[in-house]
């Protein structure tokens, strides 16, 4: 006779079929156009980097779960997203062994060590990228030019560097619009930036395709639209003010919004459901802080790009934002009188 069990749980008792893995599958789908465009612009190298990071992220997740004798959680697609996001924010000719290490760090130190999905303090992909940035500062700032004629058949030799060996950079390495502006004061064409016809990380260049993916997710209510809107608006207003004050020193707000990894960061990384605040007001504040930090780092910091550190820093304070902006409990007075 089967044992009768009575499940006692709190509401909601009726659930819609929107599980974690359904959402995650749609996020992967939404990332696909931008990733495919990255492969089209940068060639086979970018494809290999993104594939490697995804495969190693999933493998790390699986092995770590096996190690602590738990059911594998690779089926919820969250590890695949972490890997894909990491691959998309790495240079297209990044050595594969470094990519693999970054993926393993992302999953192990960014997510697993905190207790897995739902417990991570930071966006795991950005943890991996921050590690790679600090460990291999040379390789991660070596960019390739877009639209090389032989990009589909000739993979840059740095991609296939031997594990733990220095990559050999072949030919001239390109520049991203942000580094070109920071170090050489060269402004890029806005049209190229919006479409993504410029240097940069493997999947971050195409603002249009990233926006498309974001709008799709927001329409399916799988993404908190307030975060990207808040981030982008803050960057627009803040850098617009600076541009208005001194147009020769500070770039135009359009450049700031569409250059670099801001679109990818604002739409797909800052919106990490675990590492962002839960209240709507909190989310607006969270996005605004990210936007301010991005502009601060880009305009006055030593690095050309600041999206990664801005999001990581704001991830760290997002529980405090939630604490400070606590919604009034339904049915209670605005100010509880001291009894």
């Amino acid at each position, binding site marked *: 006779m089967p044992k009768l069990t009575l499940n006692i749980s709190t509401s909601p008792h009726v659930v819609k079929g929107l599980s974690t893995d359904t959402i995650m599958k749609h996020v992967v789908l939404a990332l696909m156009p931008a990733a495919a465009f990255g492969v089209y612009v940068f060639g086979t190298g970018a494809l290999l980097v993104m594939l490697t990071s995804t495969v190693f992220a999933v493998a790390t997740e699986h092995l770590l779960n096996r190690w602590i004798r738990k059911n594998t959680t690779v089926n919820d697609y969250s590890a695949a997203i972490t890997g894909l996001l990491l691959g998309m924010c790495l240079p297209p000719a990044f050595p594969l062994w*470094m990519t693999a290490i970054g993926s393993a760090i992302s999953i192990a*130190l960014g997510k697993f060590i905190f207790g897995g999905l739902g417990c991570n303090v930071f966006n795991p992909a950005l943890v991996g990228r921050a*590690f790679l940035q*600090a*460990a*291999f*500062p040379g*390789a991660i700032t070596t960019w390739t030019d877009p639209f090389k004629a032989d990009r589909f058949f000739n993979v840059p030799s740095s991609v296939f*560097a*031997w594990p*733990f*060996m*220095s*990559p050999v950079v072949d030919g001239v390495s390109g520049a991203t619009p942000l580094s070109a502006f920071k170090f050489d004061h060269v402004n890029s064409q806005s049209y190229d930036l919006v479409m993504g016809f410029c240097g940069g990380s493997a999947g971050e260049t195409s603002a249009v395709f990233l926006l498309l993916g974001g709008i799709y997710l927001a329409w399916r209510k799988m993404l908190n639209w307030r975060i990207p809107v808040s981030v982008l608006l803050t960057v627009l207003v803040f850098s617009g003010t600076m541009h208005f004050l001194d147009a020769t020193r500070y770039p135009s707000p359009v450049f700031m919004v569409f250059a670099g990894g801001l679109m990818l960061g604002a739409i797909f990384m800052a919106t990490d459901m675990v590492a962002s605040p839960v209240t709507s007001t909190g989310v607006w504040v969270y996005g605004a802080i990210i936007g301010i930090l991005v502009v601060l780092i880009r305009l006055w910091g030593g690095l050309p790009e600041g999206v990664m550190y801005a999001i990581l820093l704001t991830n760290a304070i997002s529980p405090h934002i939630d604490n400070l902006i606590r919604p009034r409990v339904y049915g209670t007075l605005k100010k509880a009188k001291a009894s």
Partner: protein
Amino acid sequence: MNPPTHSNQPDKGFFSQLANSKSADEFVKGLWRDNPVFVQVLGMCPTLAVSNSATNAVSMGLATTFVLTMSNVLISMLRNFIPKQVRIASYVLIIATFVTITDYMIQAISIDIHKSLGAFIALIVVNCVILGRAEAFASKNTVGFSFLDGLGMGLGFTFGLFCIGTVREILGNGTFFAMQVMPESFEKWVIMVLPPGGFFTLALWLLIFKGYKLKKAAHE
């Protein structure tokens, strides 16, 4: 068939027999069971700051061992004379004396090591391992036991620093005690010689030691 040379009692081995005596136990506990770095997690400031190479780690560890042993002995000698109210000040004075001696000794031996250790030699004064052993052990035990305790704790501290320093130097610089161990084209993990590398490596070792301990506890 040869007659068994041993008795049928379980062989305890030289070291575990030695460990049963109290004096040996005072020495051994600092090396492993109560290791200052991996078990007590004390003295984190020098552990994280100067463990960026094996040479730095070992010299820092030996300097600390000397100060720890000597101050333990002196404090233990004076334990009945030091008034309870001013004991911490007295301990710090005694420790500072030996730190000054160490400082000049290191300068005399190698000015390079002195430069790379920098302010952290002077900071041995406030190392919580030393003050902790003075307060918790030397002020309550005889000179002989205090000497062994200081030596064991100091060598355990050196061992901890050596573990961290080895990993950081090999990955971060491709060398081990300043000797090239990695191929020429080895890509250096810059993060490992920077402060974050110290935290990562320490956490990794703590994970390994804790896991080993839990596994051992589960078997028993």
